[in-house]
């Protein structure tokens, strides 16, 4: 018999809470295909009015960075504080940015 998880692979779920905001990753679930994954995502992740749009992506379709390569990837940015836009004085008239 086929393994249950071959029939229902893992999907990553993204929800957009409101128009104008972006979709955010909220979790994952098992489903046979994209139509059922969307329905399950609706049942599992939008029970309390969390959103108005859902994306699902097969987990296996996501290319992820290698955790063991985290230091070479990310540490070189640590000492380049001039890349943060914190050296500007924002005039009061501009308001909230």
């Amino acid at each position, binding site marked *: 018999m086929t393994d249950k998880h071959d029939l*229902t692979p893992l999907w990553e779920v993204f929800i957009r809470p409101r128009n104008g905001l972006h979709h955010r990753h909220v979790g994952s679930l098992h489903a046979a*295909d994209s139509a059922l994954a969307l*329905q*399950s995502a609706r049942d*599992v992740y939008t029970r309390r009015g969390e959103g108005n749009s859902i994306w699902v992506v097969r987990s296996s379709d996501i290319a992820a960075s290698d955790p063991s390569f985290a230091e070479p990837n990310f540490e070189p940015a640590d000492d380049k504080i001039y890349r943060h836009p914190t050296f500007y004085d924002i005039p009061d008239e501009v308001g909230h940015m």
Partner: protein
Amino acid sequence: MAAAVASAEDAVLRAILEIADDGLILGHRLSEWCGHAPMLEEELALANMGLDLLGQARALYAHAGALEGKGRTEDDFAFLRRERDYVNCLLVERDNRDFAHTMLRQLYFAAFMQPFWHATVQTSSDETLRGIAAKADKEMSYHLRHSGEWVIRMGDGTEESAARMADAVNELHRYTGELFMVSPARQQAIAAGLLPDPESLRDEWDETIATVFRAAKLELPEIRTMQKGGRDGIHGEDMGHLLAELQFMQRAYPGQTW
């Protein structure tokens, strides 16, 4: 009983109880899956659908109680009637059996109730019913989509799922005729413009079921005699067991609240 329908008020009350009981009993059946569903995602989906139906039933019982004007509450209708006083159709009380039976039962019911509520929103002369219907229309539209997708996947799935689906069709199709049967009470409610005539929904139901069955590679069985009796309070053996569990708390501890 049909003969006991004396006044127009009684008829309307009775007609509303028919659809309220459908929701309560099917909602209870779905709740029986709690802790037993084949996967967590479906556990939530089944409970969600059960709660939708329970919510519809509550609103309808409250409306029925207000129309009756004798102080009966939704709890009185749900928990304190005898088996013969429940007028749900037989389809909704059929046991869960397996996931195929459960999803097919949901498909048969939702394929009828979604257009039923949709027509009620458009045409009912009762403002409260229109309000209940507007919410229920959206809920049943989801039930229809969800159960339809599953019936297609199981019917056109593995050897085992296809066999279970075919088994469910053979078992349950004979209970679909009662969805369209009109009791004398219902006839009065239809004539009064409160509820849509089921006959006007038949083409849409046939079309929905035919479309799903085609995709699911399922065959429509030829049924000579449709089962009936629920609308007259004549239920199957399973109903007593269902009510025993549904009513236990209120029977054992009258007036108990959370």
